[in-house]
């Protein structure tokens, strides 16, 4: 409706009645997308359950090959980044643009720390010859299907790492927009929904860490 759009604030797209409707819609859309993400990882978790039931002793042995200390550090790092992204949203709500930018930068820094640690873990595995599937050459594990555990390990952590990378990209984009002064307590929808995504990435790691590293 033409006469409607003339009174719109600039951030409200033409097909929404007002800012609230746009905010609610974006948030609902993100929640639906997160459900879809959970199902995506759900397939891998399902494979994990099947093979853990098939080869319980393998999972116990193989988990010992993973470095629990660095896994725990990474867990703390990611939970910390969830806190800072929540603080970024809080800053936006209170119209504190400086706090918003600083918290976004800390979140990015923590995410990079996570990736660096993950990278060192992978590099160490590759040195030992623990490659996925056919390329598996490590002989330190006395189990004929040792590669199955690491196949699942690499798929789960690899797909999760991909999500972290996408998250870094998104948060950096939000930071650039914050620098241009696009956000205020009136409009911070992209900050909020990116935050939602980041919490999910964090949450999935919280499941991965005990499932892969802490098997007794």
């Amino acid at each position: 409706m033409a006469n409607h759009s003339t009174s719109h604030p600039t951030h409200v797209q033409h097909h929404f009645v007002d800012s609230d409707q746009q905010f609610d819609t974006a948030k609902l859309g993100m929640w639906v997308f997160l459900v879809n993400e959970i199902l995506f990882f759900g397939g891998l978790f399902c494979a994990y359950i099947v093979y853990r039931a098939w080869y319980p002793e393998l999972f116990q042995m193989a988990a010992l090959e993973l470095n629990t200390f660095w896994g725990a550090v990474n867990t703390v790092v990611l939970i910390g980044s969830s806190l800072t992204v929540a603080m970024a949203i809080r800053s936006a709500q209170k119209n504190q643009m400086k706090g918003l930018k600083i918290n976004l930068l800390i979140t990015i820094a923590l995410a990079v720390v996570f990736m660096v640690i993950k990278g060192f873990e992978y590099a160490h595995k590759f040195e030992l010859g623990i490659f996925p599937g056919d390329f598996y050459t490590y002989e330190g594990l006395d189990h004929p299907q040792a590669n199955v555990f690491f196949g699942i390990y690499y798929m789960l952590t690899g797909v999760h790492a991909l999500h972290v990378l996408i998250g870094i990209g998104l948060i950096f984009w939000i930071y650039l927009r914050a620098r241009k002064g696009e956000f205020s307590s009136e409009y911070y929808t992209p900050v909020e929904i990116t935050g939602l995504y980041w919490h999910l990435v964090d949450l999935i790691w919280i499941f991965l860490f005990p499932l892969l590293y802490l098997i007794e």
Partner: protein
Amino acid sequence: MATAEVSPASTGTKKTFKVKRYIPSENPKKTFFTEERGLWAWLTTVDHKKIGLMYLGSVTFFFLLGGILALLLRTELLTPAQTFIEADTYNQFFTLHGAIMVFFVLVPSIPAALGNFVLPMQLGAKDVAFPRLNLASLYIYIIGAIFTFIALASNGLDTGWTFYTPYSTESTSSVIWVTMGVFILGFSSILTGTNFIATIHKLRAPGITWSKLPLNIWALYATSIMQVLATPVLAITLLLLTMERFLGVGIFDPSLGGDPVLYQHFFWFYSHPAVYIMIVPGFGIISEVITTFSKKHIFGYWAIALSSLAIAFIGFLVWGHHMFTSGQSAVATTVFSFLTFLVGIPTGIKILNWVATLYKGSIEMKTPMVYVFVFLFLFSIGGFTGIMLGALSADIHLHDTYYVVAHFHYVMMGGTLIALLAGLHYWWPKMTGKMYNEFQAKIGAALIFIGFNMTFLPQFIMGSQGMPRRYYNYIDQFTIFHQTSTIGSYILGVGFLLIAYYLAKSLMSGERAGSNPWGSRGLEWQSTSPPDLHNFDHTPVVINGPYDYHKPMEEFQLGLANAHDEKH
């Protein structure tokens, strides 16, 4: 000028609006065709109507491709031995026919093409919730298509559309290109589903409560939920399959400690709900068309609305019936068999409610309505034969025979595609502003009905006598069935060509269609044909249900009287 007390979707609390009647122009000066012109405007548009039409064009193109493959397959089967193509080529043709028809035609056909066009209009919205995401979904679809074409141009594909392991990890054909193509395509489906859910929840015009939603919206809502919940599982499955080929991850490979049946579980966890992703939107169209041409309120509104959701729910619990012969445990097969029968209940509720809607209606046999009757007949056969296949003892005999082929063609083609044709003929005047030739359209419907039954009825018979599916050669006793089937498929082909001809002709020289040629009470008909860029030049206000044919037309054409006085 009057007032109406209705609740806007955004707040939910009742509010009094000043409303007045807006009579749509029969000869609109501005339409979405004229407001943005040129190729670039189309390629970069965020208008859901243009995106819907571009989807319709893409789907039609793929339908032509998949259809030509089907005719080539049927021609090869004219004689028991080789007729004109090699056995390997035959394997590639049936694989590509299946993959193209399922992933590129049936899944996106109704939601992304017709749904995109109609859904915001039925909700009285100016667009879908995320218009740019909607355009992105179209481009993702096209990228997925390009991947598939690369496969076609390189080594083809010979695994069957289900990509079963272990063959799919060993085949020398381009499995990776096609699975990555389908993987990418999945995102397009997820984005459409997400978009529709958000739109239905948040963008309804004032007065459209959940009990006044058109049944087409309920059907698309159920479909979107399935798309969002099932498609990611297919995505991870295909990703694992790709990794299996690249790295030999071993999750589906028994020689590395994996399990090929797990692949089947994963695949059908998506692909069985996908069957309902394909058919449920068709149910929505049938509900719309059958009320419009009976001039009568739908029988059992809530029964039809909720049975869509029931099908969506049960549809997630039946995937195991594809693995009755794959070495599943006896307990699992029994449970899956029982759950499969349950799907028949909500589906039967729909069929009976539609038939009850006809009772004492003033039935007008226009082309869309003809297709509804074709649908009721063919889809019922498809549904009943599905129950037979769900029965354990019968399925062991019928598994992987032409009986299965005939069953899913009766459901997918006799159901979804016929519903698509009903919807296409129903909304064609709205989409284009032009009317097609009614007589030619009825001839087309008759050709399709005859051709379809001639093609697929013999397949039930030869399937029950043991003719296996996907075979290149067959023994002489099946010759007569195969030949009848092939001739039927040619009639079907002629029928589709006729439809293409008169629809194209209507664009050039068709009569102008009025804003509401069928006298429907649906909101999408209370705008001009074709609509303008924002669908309505006012904010519609809805006080009646979409099928209240006993109420006068003026109550269906209300809109906010003075937008400036309303608080935004």
